[in-house]
Structures are given as structure tokens and as C-alpha cells.
């Protein structure tokens, strides 16, 4: 498949033109900024239709194998699509847990039957996926998860509870981490990994309202829930290995996602525009040297990240701490984003106190909303503090 610059540039133009013609009109209700806050049926219906449209146009799962519904093309094509989705501020592609985490995991480590059964439905949004990793008492200490799975004939009986289940009420399948052997010689060795149905007797979900005021998360309860034994992925005891691999996809340490466009990005360009639009002392805030200094610092850090991404592909320039760029991307990007959004709220004067349903709020209170939402990124998928421990231990080689 051709990846020369001219071909890619032409492809980018094709995608751009398609998006200009096909991005849906504003539906008149609030659209989620990220895949984690799909909270109403109308939002869900809108996003399912949009994902299907993008897939049918051939712009989703471009690097996934053709036999399962992908297009078998080099990943750079999907990267271009993802960049153009962001450039056009298109609605998000919401089925992230399938497209970005479970899908690549199944393609890499699943059986032929699992690939046949699950991959296509992920791409078409017919099957919405959710994740059952964190528990109310075991978040950062995921290896200590206590939800039990006991083999009973052709079934497993599940008891326990999972929390922060994005898409929980809409989910058809869950990637589920559960304990099959409480007596195993380590806490990790007792865990197993399931591709579990969500519509099974004994599985219920209860929505959780978030700091933004919206829904999108749920707590999932398993009360003697029975799922078919064939839902076990890999062998019993391999759960930790599969969960860690999933987290590598989740944290974008590993490529292979059908798309990485799962949230509306707000960049330093948007922050500059905001500073241009706010007047203080008869002048745009953008002309204030104190504000300028902070903006330059943000832009510099944003560029660090982009350049780190480029340098990560040049191993000769990564010899000091070979794992560090790979492990630190999520931490840096999410923390920078949080600080930028927090700063943008602080610039708004008294309007910084208005929220999303107030018509006088600046840009629909996108910064306030985005700032709150950003905590899902600095907490979810491993808190910044745990990420920092991981970098210290695995990149720098400091003791546990």
C-alpha cells in the first residue's frame, strides 16, 4: 500500500472533503466532549449513527484486517483520518472501549472465533463495549480486584461490583477482570479475563452522576450472574497479563486502535482565541504580557509533547531512558490539558462562575466543562500519581 507523501496528501484532501460534506448539523442538544459522558438516549442515537456513517465511508478501522471488517491498510491512513476529524472538530467516535482497547486486544491475542464474533460489531457500533476493571475498593491497586468468578459446569458465576463503567447502561459486552483463584500464590496470578455479555441475569447497572453534572458512568453489580464459560479469554490466571496489555492500548503506549479520536481536543490555539475574545482594560487579554508569558509556556509544553512523539520513533535519540517517552505521554498530555483548562477558566472574570446551561457563559462554558471533564483523563486509566510511580520505577529504575 502506497504511503508516499503525495498519495497521503491526496488522501488527506479526500477525507477533509468528505468530512466537510458529512459532518452532521448541530443536533440542538449538548454533545459529549469525550466518550465518557454519553448520558442520554438522544446522544447515544446520534453517536451510533455518526460512527456507522464514518465506518461505512471506510474511515474507521482502516488498519484492521479485512477479513474481520477492517481495510488492511497502513496505520498512517487512520492517523490522517483521526487528525482530520480533530481538525474539523467532528463529533467524537464514541465506542472507544471496543475500537481502542478491546478490539486491538482481541485482534492481537484472541482466538479466531473471538475475532469473528466481536470485531465487526465494534466497528459498526452495533456492539457497544464497556470495561470492568476498577472496583469501589480497588482503583489504582487494580491487581487486588476482588470480583469473583467461579466455574460451574459450562458457566462462570460472577459476584461483586465494578465501578466507573463507561457506557455501562448501553453496553453489550464488557472486558471483565475477575478473580478465579483467591488462593493463587500472588494476587495477580488469581485473576482471569472475560469477554462478558452485559445482558445476563444477575447483571445490573446503576448510573453515576459526575462532577460535570452529567451521566455516562455506572456502577455494575454482579449478583450470582451466570455467563457462558467460553467468555473466558486466554486461560484462567492470565487475567493480569491481558489487563496490562489492555492498559497499554488504553494509554496509547501501543498502537492498533481502530481510531484514537475519542474526545474533542482543546488546544493552545483555542486558548489563544479565548484570550483574543476577552477584553480587559479596553484591550484583548491576549495583549497582556503576563498572560502572554503563560500562553507561551503552554505552547512550549504542547510542542514538547508533539516533538517527543516524533523523537520516540528515533531510537538512537532515546538511549538514556528508553521507556520514558512511551510511559510518560499520557501523564504529560493529560496534566498539561488540565492546567490549560483551569487557566482558561481563571481568565474569564466573573463569567468563570457560569456553567453550561447559562446562555451568558463564555463559549457555552466549554472551558469549565472541559476542566471538570479532564479529571477523567488524569484519574482514569491510571491516576497521574500512579503513572508517575510507574515512570519512576520502570523508566528511571527507582525502587518500589
Amino acid at each position, binding site marked *: 500500500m502506497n504511503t508516499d507523501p503525495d498519495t497521503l496528501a491526496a488522501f488527506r484532501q479526500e477525507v477533509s472533503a468528505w468530512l466537510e460534506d458529512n459532518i452532521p448539523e448541530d443536533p440542538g442538544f449538548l454533545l459529549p466532549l469525550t466518550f465518557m459522558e454519553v448520558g442520554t438516549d438522544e446522544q447515544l442515537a446520534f453517536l451510533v449513527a455518526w460512527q456507522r456513517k464514518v465506518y461505512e465511508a471506510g474511515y474507521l478501522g482502516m488498519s484492521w484486517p479485512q477479513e474481520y471488517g477492517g481495510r488492511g491498510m497502513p496505520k498512517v491512513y487512520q492517523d490522517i483520518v483521526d487528525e482530520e476529524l480533530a481538525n474539523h472538530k467532528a463529533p467524537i467516535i464514541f465506542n472507544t472501549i471496543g475500537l481502542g482497547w478491546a478490539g486491538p486486544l482481541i485482534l492481537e491475542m484472541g482466538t479466531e472465533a473471538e475475532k469473528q464474533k466481536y470485531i465487526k460489531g465494534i466497528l459498526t457500533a452495533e456492539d457497544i463495549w464497556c470495561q470492568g476493571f476498577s472496583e469501589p475498593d480497588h482503583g489504582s491497586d487494580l491487581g487486588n480486584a476482588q470480583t469473583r468468578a467461579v466455574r460451574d459446569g459450562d458457566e462462570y458465576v460472577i459476584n461483586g461490583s465494578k465501578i466507573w463503567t463507561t457506557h455501562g447502561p448501553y453496553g453489550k459486552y464488557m472486558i471483565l477482570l475477575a478473580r478465579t483463584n483467591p488462593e493463587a500464590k500472588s494476587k495477580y496470578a488469581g485473576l482471569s479475563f472475560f469477554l462478558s455479555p452485559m445482558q445476563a441475569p444477575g447483571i445490573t447497572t446503576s448510573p453515576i452522576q459526575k462532577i460535570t453534572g452529567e451521566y455516562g458512568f455506572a456502577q455494575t453489580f454482579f449478583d450470582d450472574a451466570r455467563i457462558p464459560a467460553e467468555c473466558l479469554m486466554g486461560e484462567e490466571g492470565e487475567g493480569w497479563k491481558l489487563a496490562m496489555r489492555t492498559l497499554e492500548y488504553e494509554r496509547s503506549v501501543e498502537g492498533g486502535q481502530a481510531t484514537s479520536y475519542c474526545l474533542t481536543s482543546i488546544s493552545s490555539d483555542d486558548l489563544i482565541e479565548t484570550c483574543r475574545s476577552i477584553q480587559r482594560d479596553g484591550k484583548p487579554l491576549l495583549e497582556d504580557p503576563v498572560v502572554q508569558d503563560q500562553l507561551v509556556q503552554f505552547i512550549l509544553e504542547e510542542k514538547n509533547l508533539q516533538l517527543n512523539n516524533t523523537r520516540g520513533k528515533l531510537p538512537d535519540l532515546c538511549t538514556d531512558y528508553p521507556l520514558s517517552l512511551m510511559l510518560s505521554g499520557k501523564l504529560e498530555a493529560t496534566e498539561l490539558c488540565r492546567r490549560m483548562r483551569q487557566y482558561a477558566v481563571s481568565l474569564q472574570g466573573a463569567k468563570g462562575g457560569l456553567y453550561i446551561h447559562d446562555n451568558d457563559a463564555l463559549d457555552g462554558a466549554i472551558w469549565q466543562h472541559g476542566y471538570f471533564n479532564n479529571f477523567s483523563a488524569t484519574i482514569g486509566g491510571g491516576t497521574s500519581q500512579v503513572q*508517575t510511580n510507574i515512570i519512576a520505577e520502570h523508566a528511571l529504575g527507582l525502587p518500589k
Partner: protein
Amino acid sequence: MGFVRYEENKSYSMRFSEEQKMILESARSFCQDTSSIEQVRKLLESAQGYEDNVWQQLVELGWTGIAIAEAFGGSELGIEAVVPIVESMGRNLSATPFISCTLAAQLLLRAASPEQQQRWLPKMVEGQIATLALLDNEDWGADNTTHQLSDDLVLTGEKWFVDDAATAELFIILTQYQGSARFVLVERNQLSEGAIKAHALIDETKRSAKVDFTGVTVSADAVLAADNVEAILADIKLIGALLTAAEAVGTTSSCLNLVVDYLNTRKQFGKPIGSFQALKHPSVDILIKLEGARSQVYHAATLFEEGKGEIERDLEIACRMAKASANDALLMAGDRAVQFHGGMGFTYECDAQLYIRRAQWSQQQFGDSAHHRKRLAPLLLN
């Protein structure tokens, strides 16, 4: 619309050629061999700060000519080839006049007539030491000078922070001649007795001095041909900022190694202190700053290669971001290295002092972080 993004992506370009890789490997091993920490300490009190035989070896490796045109005996590889060398020097706190000489050569390549270049550059390839005398005082942001060259070609005025003045044979001075800025050359033997007064630098590995050029008469061919002095000066300051940044990146990484080694070996409360998150997390902060700065430095090096030495807007941004990032990384590394060594960190004997001192010196060469952010603002926000 799509093309805009595609074009923009060029400003994130970074490449590292086989040639650069070979230079980096050879520079790393050279600096390890010639600039062990014991050697660095041994040189702290020496007058010139480096050993002649080390400089001679460096000349024989061809590094003094690496960014000088082939016509003058150099290898014409550009600033992108200088960066890995300087980074390696920073890594081992090696303090030869390499940066001074590189900048002097870059200035001559931009400002001197062909005859002037032919006279000086081949000597510099062979190891003659040259340095810049730009500052009237401490201010890197100054855009004019009070230094004077009279109509009858007599100099009046002192220059500050003339690096490696102790061994320089050639000084390139920023002065005023007939109402406009010019560069003028002075040879060492033209200086009067006592004209060079060494600064007592906070960084004892480096050497810099005040040099009084008052009373020196120069010949007409010592005035460099170029009259676009401001533009050339701006370029040289950006190259200086980049090279200092590259050096600081190398120093930051060895400072971080020092911290990590200590955190892994020192025990308190029955365990290595590196297991405490209060020490672990700031160590990661240093690493993250280091990685960002290193990316900026090699991105700027790549843009030098693409622009064949021409400095456009993107490259100016890259050099300034590299310097601001590298300053912040090394300042934090040096500061935390002292703190994390506890009582030992407060002693002269602990190597952390070498790094915190280097950090203070380095941040002030070719502009501190706020200096560069201030100049980035109009480039980024309009």
C-alpha cells in the same frame, strides 16, 4: 484545509542521520575518556579550565572544522553535527573552548569577506582559539553597544563575559563604527598588559573574562565586511542559545543519573530513599523536563539542516524553545540534586554542587527562560 495541517506538521520534523549517530557515539566516548568527574574536579582551579592535549585530540578528530566550509579545510556538516558533540561535552561537564570557537567561526562565515575568511578560518580548523566579545554588561537583551571604533580605527571600551579569553588568539568584537554597529577583529598580541581580567564564575568548570580593548588600533582589514550586523548578531545569539541548550541537556541527563544512583543506594528508615514518593515524583519531573528539552534541541538541529544554516521563523522558535526548556530542566535537576543528597548535598565534596553551579551559569548564556518566552510571544501569539 487538510494541507494546512500537513504543512504545519513540518514544524515538528526531526531526523537523526547515520552520520550524526556516529558523531554522537564518538563524542560520548571521547568525553567519557577525557572528562571523568575526577578530571573535571582537577581542572576547577586551573587557569584555562581544560588541557591542551585534550583540545589537540579534539582538533585531530576534525570537530573544530565540522561546521566550517570545505573550502577552508572543514567538513561542512553544519550545526546539526555540532549539537551531538556539545551535548556529549555537557554530559561530562567538559569545558573546552569548543562552543566559543564554533560561534566565532559561524560569525566569520556570515560576516567576513572571502579574504578575511581565507585568512582566519583555516587556522581555526587547525585549532586556533577564537571567541566572541559581544556584551558591554550583563544584558543579553541589549541590541546596541557603547563600544567604539574611532574614525582612525582605535578601539575604546571593555567587553564582559568573553568566554575562554585566557587562551583565545582571536577576539571578534561588537563595536560602533561611524554611527553603526560593526564586528572587528583583534588578535591577542594587540592587547595591553592586564587587559584580560578573569570573572570569578559561579561555575568553576567554565572560564570567562572582562577584556578591555581600549587603545588597541586595528587595521582596516580587521573590520568585518558585513554591514547587516544586527541580523547576523541575532543569528549568532540563536545558535549560541541552541548550543548552550544542547550542552545543558547533556548535563541534565548526567545530573539525573547522579540523583537516581543516590536514590537507589542511600538507605534511611530501613529502605532506599528512592522508594519514597516525595523523592520519586520530582525525579520524574526532571526526566520529563529533560525529555522535552532534548526533543526541542534535536528538532532545532533538524531545522538547521533543512534550512542549510538560514534562520527562519520556525528555527528561531525552535532555538528559543530549546533554550527555555533546557534552562528549566537543568535548573530543576541541579536544585533537586543538592536537596536530595541531604547533608552531603550541602558539601563542596558532593558532585551535586558541580551541577547546580553549571545550571546557574548555563541559564544566563544567550538568555534566560523569561528572555526567550518574551521573544517567543510575538512569534507565537499573532
